């Protein structure tokens, strides 16, 4: 069933890619140069890596019926901490470690507000969304901290055949997939999201689980922030990760996960994140004028959503085949 739901977003992605091909014949071309793989598709994945990373964490948070608006600010803080540390003469590895530790603390804070104090997630994380950017700017004193460090540059702009950013994101994707399948985390997260009271009565440590997912998304945001700042070798406290929370949530939802909590799809999130980045790249490559960029985006988002909508998708599927045949197909699929 869920694979069927992803069919239409996947087709939308293909359509977007083909649209690019019309404007740029070499769009699918990949070439290997100095052991690095180059090409538009690689660009899309690399630029989409931070969004994907955050969206993965967000998927779990949303599955618990939560939401985290602070990820953009956390990403900015991670970049700011790392860059100021390096600028002050620190080593890149300690800088990154420092940044991630701080992000974990911020995740603990969000988790505390949501699971212990019981504040609605959107507001609990709004606090850090606002204050977090201030903290990032406090760290950089409002300046864009530019650094020149080859090790640090690797995170966002380095290559191991493929860009390292892509490898990191895919590794996290694999890790999350494994962690949610091979451990009971996935099921417990869903059960807390669907029915918190029933879960509590069944002895589920809802608090710990909620706490865990907020720390995890903050860590994802931290790594994403390192990527963003490493990619341009600078920390821009004000603009790094601006509105990335919306992109991440959008990716999750396009991927078929409901904001009402419960069942989620990591594959869907991957697809969603790629669609969003492809959309951005498409705008650049096919030369959409900046003033209609947003309208263009809106139209694509609406089309993707409509294709995937529970009401429309069956109608479209049903159109060619009579309903009875359809039922048979579903029956086979279920078994």
């Amino acid at each position: 069933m869920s694979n069927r739901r992803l069919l239409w977003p996947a087709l939308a992605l293909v359509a977007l890619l083909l649209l690019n091909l019309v404007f740029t014949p070499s769009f699918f071309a990949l070439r290997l140069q100095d052991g690095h793989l180059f090409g538009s598709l690689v660009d899309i994945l690399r630029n989409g890596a931070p969004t994907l990373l955050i969206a993965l964490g967000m998927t779990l948070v949303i599955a618990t019926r939560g939401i985290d608006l602070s990820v953009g600010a956390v990403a900015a803080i991670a970049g700011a901490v790392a860059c100021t540390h390096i600028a002050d003469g620190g080593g890149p590895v300690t800088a990154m470690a420092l940044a991630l530790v701080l992000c974990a603390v911020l995740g603990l804070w969000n988790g505390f507000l949501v699971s212990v104090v019981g504040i609605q997630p959107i507001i609990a994380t709004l606090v850090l969304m606002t204050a977090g950017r201030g903290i990032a700017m406090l760290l950089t004193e409002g300046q864009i901290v530019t650094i020149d460090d080859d090790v640090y540059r690797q995170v966002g702009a380095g290559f191991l055949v493929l860009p390292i950013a892509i490898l990191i994101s895919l590794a996290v994707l694999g890790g999350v997939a494994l962690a949610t399948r091979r451990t009971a985390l996935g099921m417990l997260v869903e059960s807390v999201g669907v029915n918190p009271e029933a879960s509590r009565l069944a002895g589920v440590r809802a608090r710990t689980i909620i706490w865990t997912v907020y720390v995890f998304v903050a860590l994802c945001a931290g790594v994403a922030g390192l990527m963003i700042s490493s990619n341009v070798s600078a920390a821009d406290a004000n603009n790094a990760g601006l509105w990335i929370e919306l992109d991440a949530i959008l990716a999750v939802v396009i991927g078929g996960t409901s904001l009402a909590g419960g069942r989620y799809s990591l594959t869907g999130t991957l697809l969603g994140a790629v669609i969003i980045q492809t959309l951005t790249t498409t705008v650049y490559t096919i030369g959409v004028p900046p003033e209609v960029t947003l309208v263009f985006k809106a139209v694509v988002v609406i089309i993707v959503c409509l294709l995937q909508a529970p009401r429309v998708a069956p109608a479209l599927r049903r159109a060619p085949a009579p309903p009875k045949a359809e039922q048979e197909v579903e029956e086979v699929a279920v078994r």
Partner: protein
Amino acid sequence: GEGGSGGAAAGDDGTITIGFAQVGAESGWRTANTKSIQEAAEAAGIELKFSDAQQRQENQIRAIRSYVQQRVDVIAFSPVVETGWDTVLLEAKRANIPVILTDRAVDSDDTSLYETFLGSDFVEEGRKAGEWLVENATGPQKVVELQGTTGAAPAIDRKEGFEEVIASRPDIEIVASQTGDFTRSGGKQVMEAFLRSTPDIDVVYAHNDDMGLGAIEAIKAAGKVPGKDIKIITVDAVKAGMEALAAGEINFIVECNPLLGEQLMELAKKVVAGEEVPERVVTEETTFTQEEAKAALPDRQY
């Protein structure tokens, strides 16, 4: 703190209180601007009430209104946008508080609403960028433009000035133009896409240094040499930009000077003293080539 309460201080003890409503802290340029004003106020012995509007006009209006309420001696602000100031400026006028605009003008038919306007001319900046290109370009040029935030005034004006000048050269053509939101990441991503979709780019015109710096990263990653294979022109002249210019990665920068604190304090004193001030004060701004940058860099303040 000590600046807790304003009060009508000007007459009594001679201290001038100035309320300054800043746009925000959206760029290094803006932060330098804020810092300059704060330092100049301190140096001039003027009490500064400062507020940050977080890039929102309604917050700025709110701040100005509260300055009227607190009866400061002078109100100064950098308008987020040109339009929409009449109502609140009228309130200031009714309260007999003089207003100084910095950085941008307001679009109002009633020039009595403010005393003077101190700031750069964005269209002129665009023109300067265009002029350099027209003078230094031999043969046809394919230009890509990295615009600022869609709708932002500097973006609109810098584009306008630039286009106005290069119109004289039919062989200079803007082949692609896209917004990079004034940020480095934006500049880099857009430039990456341009490099794939548009072959043989000769010139990049970026509306600020940050996008130019992002473009440099993209050009390098594509295996080309910024400043040589592709020429880069930017506006602002913040430190990182100047360094890149001195290193030969940028070819030309048009300065947009954020350090107007001192000039502002001068004007404020004159206005309070009832002296005549000119309606328009343009900040001193220049342009930098690579050589000039090398020379200027050691004693740049920001």
